[in-house]
């Protein structure tokens, strides 16, 4: 099929290792290792599975970030991606999701023709889940978010999209944008041989000029989002008590609710 796939990924602080400053109540980021964002690993894994099936698939991983984001791209290459591109420039720093998706959409246009863009649902540091959908809008391509199952038959894609209380099964043409959630798959490890190959590969770094983006579209100053307050959300309150005439009915009701919430 010779599919061209672009995977959007982000290097994030490993939140398992992040500690909270007990006085300032903010995250202590110093010395925290950076990792490939979890959902993005699922996005890459799905692309790699397509490549496992169709050898002529070409996967390009794209990220925007500081120069050290190259380490994460090397990890993606070592897992089996063919190519990686880093969008990096001081002018891009501090971008919110709108500005980030401007830069990434520009990078994707520069990469050229593609069939599928896979992105993770959201990054564990920002949790916005906005960048993937915004890229799709800016490229004017159809999108399906929260993809939990993926199938491709004769250039036609069928995906299962997780909703809060159920699923949607959607048929979608190419090119398209799909955002992955962790239920989609179990990401593979890097291959030892892949690590050696990855470190030898050239990773192009594109600045704002190379991307051809207007400086009014990227960076901190051009970002419409302003954070005016950070706070810890209140607790969720008490749960739901299920009642019924017999234990069997209650168990049945519980089973339905657990299934609705994708707990089982």
């Amino acid at each position: 099929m010779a599919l061209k796939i672009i995977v959007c990924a982000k290097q994030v602080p490993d939140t398992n290792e992040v500690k909270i400053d007990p006085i300032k109540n903010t995250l202590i980021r110093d010395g925290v290792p950076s990792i490939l964002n979890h959902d993005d690993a699922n996005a890459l894994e799905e692309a790699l599975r397509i490549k496992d099936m169709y050898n002529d698939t070409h996967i390009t991983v794209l990220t925007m970030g500081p120069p050290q984001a190259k380490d994460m791209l090397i990890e993606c290459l070592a897992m089996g991606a063919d190519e990686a591109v880093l969008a990096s420039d001081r002018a891009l720093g501090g971008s919110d999701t709108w500005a980030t998706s401007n830069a990434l959409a520009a990078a994707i246009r520069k990469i050229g023709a593609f069939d599928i863009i896979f992105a993770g649902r959201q990054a564990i540091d920002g949790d916005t889940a906005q960048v993937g959908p915004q890229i799709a809008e800016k490229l004017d391509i159809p999108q399906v978010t929260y993809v939990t199952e993926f199938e491709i038959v004769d250039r036609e894609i069928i995906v299962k999209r997780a909703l809060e209380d159920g699923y949607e099964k959607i048929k979608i043409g190419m090119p398209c944008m799909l955002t992955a959630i962790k239920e989609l798959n179990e990401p593979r490890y890097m291959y030892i041989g892949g690590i050696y190959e990855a470190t030898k590969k050239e990773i192009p770094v594109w600045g704002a000029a190379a991307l051809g983006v207007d400086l009014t579209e990227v960076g901190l100053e051009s970002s419409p989002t302003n954070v005016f307050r950070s706070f810890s959300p209140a607790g969720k309150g008490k749960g739901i008590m299920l009642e019924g005439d017999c234990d069997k009915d209650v168990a049945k009701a519980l089973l339905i609710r657990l299934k609705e919430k994708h707990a089982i």
Partner: protein
Amino acid sequence: MVRKFAVNEVEPIAADIDKEHRFPTENVEKMARYGLLGVPFPKEYGGAGGDNMAYAITVEELSRVCASTGVICSAHTSLCGWPLFAYGTEEQKKKYLTPIAKGEKLGAFGLTEPNAGTDAGGQQTRAIDRGDHWELNGAKVFITNGGFADTFIVVAMTDKSKGTRGGISAFIIEKDFPGFSVGKTEDKMGICASSTTELIFQNCIVPKENLLGQIGEGFKIAMATLDGGRIGIASQALGIAQGAFDVTVEYMKARKQFGKSIAAFQGLQFEIADMKTRIEASRLLIYQAADRKDKHLKYGPYSAMAKLYAAETAMYVTTKAVQLHGGYGYTKDYPVERMMRDAKITEIYEGTSEVQKIVIAADVFGR
């Protein structure tokens, strides 16, 4: 990568496979997939294209959580893959090294016999030239991976009159060769999830082209193989020590006595300092040996020093780890008792600590 693999795939089953004496076939397959069974071999022969340093770290990280898994990798790579790589003809490398490096086939090495251990020259297994094939008769013991390997490097006496140097040759044996069988499986004190068996040769027919290296070169091949193998076992020992150290530090932070964590007692802190120092010293010795091997410098005595010291460190650290865990450390609810049992073998196989001293001293005084 190997740390992540070891923690996710190997550690969760390490205690169970030890208890059940079960060879972890499923993890061997996963190791093959990710290239862990061919780290130091070139890509053209199916390897990962890495070096001995990367291989040493691979064995260490696997052994940090499961010494059995570590030795499966080490015996396969050092004792079967390496002699094929170093002494095999192009045809032999294509036919035998490639599936070994890819991990499609598992490898083992047969040198030790009931009456030829440290005195490896006292081989009683005979190989007779039958014109169109070799015929092997004899038995090998304590063969790591024996019960699960597909390819074996085996040495046998081809000309007793020439003695150790010149009279012994090496052969590539496939598990399906007529006259070859796997004998009894050893019931061991430690590394219980690894397979340690006898190999039996009864008029075993070996094709002529399966002679490895030249006739009479077998002892040299075996000794060179063990020189490299020691880097693997030293790394295994280091991994065991590091694993025991890591769980002990966590235990000491959590365990409270006399109203404070036992990590706060200076007497115990001093134990930890000694353990850590020996671990780091072992690591540097191993890295030195691996680095010398990568640079094609003489590494035999250096790998002997690394193995001698790392094995002693593994025993020292695991014994202390059990002690620092107190009564809990003596139970199977904590991994340190397994690690202590596993550590002991590193002082014995692929050359006992005494043999390492012979190798080191021989280099000092010349031989």
